[in-house]
């Protein structure tokens, strides 16, 4: 037990260090705490918005007890989605694995200590999420203030559930991909399949939820959330059932992983080495081509990097296809909503802006250089080449999606050609602004000593701040829409937004070439 305690301690401090909450200088710790507060604040705001609007709606129908059920379900889905890509990295790709496996500790203890970070992350998010839920529920008479004492213990138990889902997915994916020589490719394909399954499941769940089918709320998958609600009402039997349904699967999956742990790690670490290479004539290419090629190799070689920063583009493509397939229904819906609702150009701009804010490989691109940064720093490269290759990679990735999907969605939703063109120009301009912005954020919040890419992509301050900065970029666009919605048949605000984004993009680029170059040198 003492050994396990030591392992947990190391994992805990490792997690704090990875999140900039411990070690380093005061500035680093303050930035880490700020990012955590920002993430917590965002969750709190989201939860409060949904909780209070749902509670009013449900109270009117006499179904106020559905609130904690629905919100805890949403929270678990959100946390599981957040942990999904992280679990595999945390469990199977840490630099100190050789060292850890040589320690006289059982694989189960090792696995449990490794997932501590995942559990604490989910506990924090769930805890913050459930506070407004509990408050809204109590205000609608769902429970008494005394029931607040049951909240911490119930949340402590429920936080195991997203870990179970993420660990199971990570385990299965690692188990399969470890057996192939092209591990990254297989892993990417498996993640793609998993995402497709999640999308299909979410749509089905959404349909049932909105129809408020009673069978859905009493179905087996909903039982943990029912017990969670009852546990909040101080029902001991439900608390025990919740404990069983959350902790036992967690221990079971941890035990299953531990049984195969060394084998999977060995397979994942092994590469198919060949000793039959015959050198043929090599060809030269320019600096930029070499650098962009390297960026793409890394992008498609690290699943978590690909999916975490590329999922927005996947959603955009799915949205465009869905818009084409449901064109008639969508246009009918728009006609029913009439001119009182938000114009379609604004809805589309909001969607595309959201996607672009989510798609920021540059925001962790410098951090991912890690210990290999010396290669670029010792090479005879000008700052514009280095930064340009990272920005270029992001634009090469994003622009084709925009050029295809924005006009297609515009056509499906019945916007005019001029509006579609204005939308596309604004979207491209925002892409030109988001890419350098990600680099600027990463230069300010670098994380070069992460034990694995998961920490950089999922837990680093730069990723979160980059995401929030991307959302903040949408605000001036929204303001322009409010100020000049009708100018040039609804195209004026988009043109103004495009001009604004391009200007900001140019300013950020200039910053990178001056101050950014000096900051890179300091790393």
């Amino acid at each position: 037990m003492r050994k396990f305690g030591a392992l947990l301690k190391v994992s805990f401090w490792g997690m704090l260090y990875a999140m900039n909450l411990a070690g380093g200088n005061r500035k680093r710790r303050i930035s880490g705490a700020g990012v955590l507060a920002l993430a917590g604040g965002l969750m709190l705001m989201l939860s409060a918005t949904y909780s209070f609007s749902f509670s009013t709606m449900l109270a009117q129908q006499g179904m106020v007890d559905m609130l904690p059920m629905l919100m805890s379900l949403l929270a678990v889905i959100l946390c599981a989605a957040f942990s999904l890509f992280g679990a595999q990295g945390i469990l199977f790709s840490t630099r100190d694995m050789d060292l850890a496996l040589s320690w006289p500790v059982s694989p189960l203890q090792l696995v449990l200590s490794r997932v501590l970070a995942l559990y604490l992350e989910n506990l924090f998010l769930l805890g913050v999420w459930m506070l407004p839920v509990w408050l809204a529920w109590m205000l609608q008479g769902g429970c008494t203030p005394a029931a607040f004492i049951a909240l911490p213990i119930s949340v402590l138990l429920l936080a195991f559930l997203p870990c179970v889902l993420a660990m199971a997915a990570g385990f299965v994916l690692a188990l399969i991909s470890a057996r192939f020589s092209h591990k990254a490719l297989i892993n990417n394909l498996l993640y793609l399949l998993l995402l497709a399954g999640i999308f299909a499941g979410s749509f089905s769940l959404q349909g049932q939820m909105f129809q408020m089918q009673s069978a859905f709320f009493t179905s087996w998958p909903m039982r943990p959330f029912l017990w969670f609600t009852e546990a909040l009402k101080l029902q001991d039997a439900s608390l025990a059932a919740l404990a069983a349904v959350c902790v036992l699967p967690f221990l079971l999956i941890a035990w299953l992983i531990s049984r195969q742990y060394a084998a999977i790690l060995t397979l994942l670490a092994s590469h198919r080495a060949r000793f039959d290479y015959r050198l043929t004539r090599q060809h030269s290419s320019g600096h930029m081509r070499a650098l962009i090629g390297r960026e793409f190799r890394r992008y498609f070689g690290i699943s978590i990097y690909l999916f975490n920063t590329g999922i927005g583009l996947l959603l955009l493509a799915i949205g465009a296809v869905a818009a084409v397939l449901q064109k008639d229904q969508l246009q009918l819906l728009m006609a029913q909503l009439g001119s009182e609702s938000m114009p379609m150009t604004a809805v589309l701009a909001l969607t595309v802006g959201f996607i672009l804010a989510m798609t920021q490989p540059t925001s962790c691109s410098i951090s991912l250089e890690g210990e290999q940064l010396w290669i670029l720093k010792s090479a005879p490269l000008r700052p514009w080449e280095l930064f340009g290759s990272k920005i270029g990679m992001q634009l090469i990735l994003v622009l084709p999606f925009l050029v295809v999907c924005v006009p297609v969605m515009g056509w499906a939703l019945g916007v005019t050609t001029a509006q579609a063109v204005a939308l596309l120009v604004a979207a491209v301009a925002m892409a030109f602004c988001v890419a350098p912005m990600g680099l600027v954020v990463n230069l300010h919040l670098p994380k070069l000593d992460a034990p694995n890419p998961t920490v950089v992509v999922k837990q680093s301050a730069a990723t979160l701040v980059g995401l929030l900065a991307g959302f903040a970029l949408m605000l001036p666009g929204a303001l322009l829409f409010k100020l000049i919605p009708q100018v040039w048949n609804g195209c004026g605000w988009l043109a103004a937004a495009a001009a604004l984004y391009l200007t900001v993009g140019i300013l950020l680029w200039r910053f990178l070439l001056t101050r950014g170059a000096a900051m890179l040198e300091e790393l």
Partner: protein
Amino acid sequence: MLSIEHFSKTYPGGKRAVDDLNLVVHAGEICGFIGHNGAGKTTTLRAVAGVMSYTEGTIRVDGKDLHTDPVGAKKVMAFLPDNPDLYDYMKGIDYLNFIADLYDIPGDDRTRRIARYGDDFQLTEALGSPIGSYSHGMKQKLALISALIRKPKLLILDEPFVGLDPQASHLLKGYLAQLCAQGGAVFFSTHVLEVAQKLCHKVAIIQEGKLIRYGTMEEVVAGESLEDVFLRQTAGGADHA
């Protein structure tokens, strides 16, 4: 070829890693840089390679100031850190091509050089495999090949013999001598004092950030062994990092 004038480096927190270092390595010279762990060797080498920023002093490579013309200075040198972390997701040949592209080496030249150094270090047949599958020694060899194919005027090496097998070490010593014979220069750190004494024309001993002995090998050792001189000079100053 390399001139370091009044170079100092203070890390955040106040630790002065290098203090007013002055050193010159001429074309045709191999200069060994020796000192205890934490004496300031790696800090100096990283600054010379342009990997680490500095504010005090002047470093010139082939007459080019690292502050005013970093690209020009980096073009003529190659740096190898003590534990070269390479891109594991690339194949060996891809990494060499990547480096060759950054140094504008034409296709024919790179093919010839890769073939030569690859065969000499017995790595050619493994160049089609991902770097992640390489052993530590193979990575070290690949990093060396990537440095040598640039035909650098100045080679900066941090502990280059660590991890190399005896055959590769022997080869490397030959290449270093050859580079100097062709008008290049080498500045490298090592803890293997016998190798330094045999290989180097010059030697610099650093202790707690200060250069305590510097000169030609004959001047510094004066008939003794480098090990004896080093131990006497640095007595009591070990491991202050």
